[in-house]
């Protein structure tokens, strides 16, 4: 174990991020292929993206049409049975992928951008700006997310736009803090002083000089946020705070809970969308976990023999 842990003392994150070259994408792909967790996560996410784009290929039934028998068990016609209203659960699940994935990706992307701007600006500008932005971050970090989400969602008209706005507003803080500390470690670097001496604007330095060097941390932020957003979006919809006419896994769960799916012996109706949310969350988490390992060699699984020979 000592060979691997000593490597921890070298700067962790820049191993991947720091060097700029044309083949960044190629290296990234190779890193994913070499890590089993990352490969599994990537496959999960690819499947979900394909389902979101082409749901009709697999699920031919109209997900909204209440034309079948009610509360049917799984069968060849209805792989996961039907709802209390007689809709096909499998079809709902497949068609629900799209909006669920869109909300997750949009929220995670927006929140990552916010955390990036706030975190890096705080770190680079420093002084009063840093103190006020850090205070703002700390406040958002402490105020419990779900209660705040519930209050905000109760006042706004239900729907995906509301979902995106409230989730973005409440989820950026943790990543902003991480990006700030990474930004602080970059602050004294020569290339930043050089840019400053050249007379570049602060915004130029932040967006063109600093942020590109943090790519791997930013991708990790996005992945970490996605894990969290999938669950929270579904949780809010499960509580009935989404738009119940929109087809997502969260609203499916809501109807299943309201319809007493488990008690009625129609378990798949409730468990399938729940499992789907878990599946998507696990996909993002696996890639994220592997990303930690790729970025921070100290956390990689120890393979004793190989570690000895390469060291």
């Amino acid at each position, binding site marked *: 174990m000592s060979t691997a842990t000593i490597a921890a003392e070298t700067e962790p994150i820049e191993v991947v991020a720091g060097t700029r070259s044309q083949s960044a994408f190629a290296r990234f792909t190779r890193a994913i292929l070499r890590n089993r967790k990352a490969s599994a996560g990537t496959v999960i996410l690819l499947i979900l993206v394909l389902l979101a784009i082409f749901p009709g290929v697999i699920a031919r039934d109209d997900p909204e049409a209440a034309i079948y028998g009610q509360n049917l068990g799984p069968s060849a016609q209805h792989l996961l049975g039907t709802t209390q209203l007689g809709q096909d659960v499998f079809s709902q699940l497949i068609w629900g992928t799209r909006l669920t994935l869109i909300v997750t990706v949009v929220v995670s992307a927006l929140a990552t951008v916010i955390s990036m701007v706030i975190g890096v600006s705080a770190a680079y500008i420093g002084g009063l700006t840093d103190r006020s932005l850090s*205070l703002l971050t700390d406040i958002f970090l402490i105020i*419990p997310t779900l*209660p705040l989400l519930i209050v905000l969602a109760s006042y706004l008209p239900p729907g995906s736009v509301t979902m995106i706005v409230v989730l973005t507003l409440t989820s950026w803080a943790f990543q902003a803090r991480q990006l700030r500390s990474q930004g602080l470690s970059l602050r004294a670097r020569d290339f930043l002083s050089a840019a400053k001496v050249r007379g570049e604007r602060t915004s130029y330095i932040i967006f063109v000089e600093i942020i590109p060097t943090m790519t791997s941390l930013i991708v990790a932020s996005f992945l970490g946020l996605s894990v969290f957003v999938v669950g*929270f979006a579904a949780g809010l919809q499960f509580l009935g705070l989404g738009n119940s006419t929109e087809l997502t896994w969260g609203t499916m769960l809501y109807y299943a809970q309201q319809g007493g799916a488990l008690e009625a012996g129609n378990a798949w109706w409730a468990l399938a969308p729940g499992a789907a949310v878990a599946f998507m969350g696990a996909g993002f988490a696996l890639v994220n976990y592997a990303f930690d390992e790729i970025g921070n060699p100290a956390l990689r*699984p120890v393979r004793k023999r190989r570690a000895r020979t390469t060291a």
Partner: protein
Amino acid sequence: MKYVSRRVGLFLITLWAALTVNFIIPRVMPGNEATAVLATFRDVNPAALHALQIEFGVNVHQNILLTYVQYIGNCLTGQFGLTAQRVPVLTEIISKLPWTLGLVGVTTIIAFAIGTLVGVLGAWRRGGKLDGLLPPMLFIVASFPVFFVGLLLLYVFAVTLNWLPLSSNYSIGLEPSLSLSFIGDVLVHAVLPGLSLVVVTAGLWIYSMRNNMITTLAEDYVKMGRAKGLRSWRIMVDYAARNAILPNLTGFAMQLGYVLGGSILVEYTFSYPGLGYLFYTSTTDHDLPLMQALFLVYTLAVLVCVLLADLATAGLDPRTRDA
């Protein structure tokens, strides 16, 4: 002492921010939900009605700053008005509080203990059986939404096996008392909601504890300990784990917001009548005074725990005392 005063400062500022957010939300949101809700309150006593009008800014023809000051005063003295059922909000909250406090308190302690233990042992024996199996598994489970774990447990243990009750906090018809049978009944009802919370949160602790521990084990003072020929148990506990646990202590309080959020969903899944279930019913009943007071209660709970964790850190970590 500078550290402590700075943390107390953050406590006060965040409390103020939460109160202010709570004041602003009903005023800036589109639509006039608050007016509609308060219109149903015509027949209640004037003092309570006035408190509600101040909170929501309905029919208050006075300076907004003065209203704000009155609102803060009302919140600090616990005057949150009445619920839709005309019960004082504070009374309603206090009656449900013990259920949530018991559920979240006990499960958080269990999850933290399991997480710390597995994290420490896993990092100590890197690549061992425990380390290869539990951390990755629980990390994936931690990415599962808590309500899915809840539904799954509900399906397996309550619906299929019929071992444990489906919902609620104690059996219908039972009179709350301190008798053994009643306490047993309460515990039996708390197993599934509690287990859902433990399963989902333990992974987070394992993950962060393991990572802290790995970083700490690479420190020179650990090598020093080995060089001195100390027993490995001592190095693991006194040298490494003691330092690795510090960041987790702060994380503990921060994660509490997440755990409380999870408990709302769990209480809803199991119809467990604590604050979380009350929160849910307040949204379906459009009981805005109750909902907003609950938001403040949840925020205050997290704030108090963050402050306690900070004080504990100050006590355990000498570096914070002179920083």
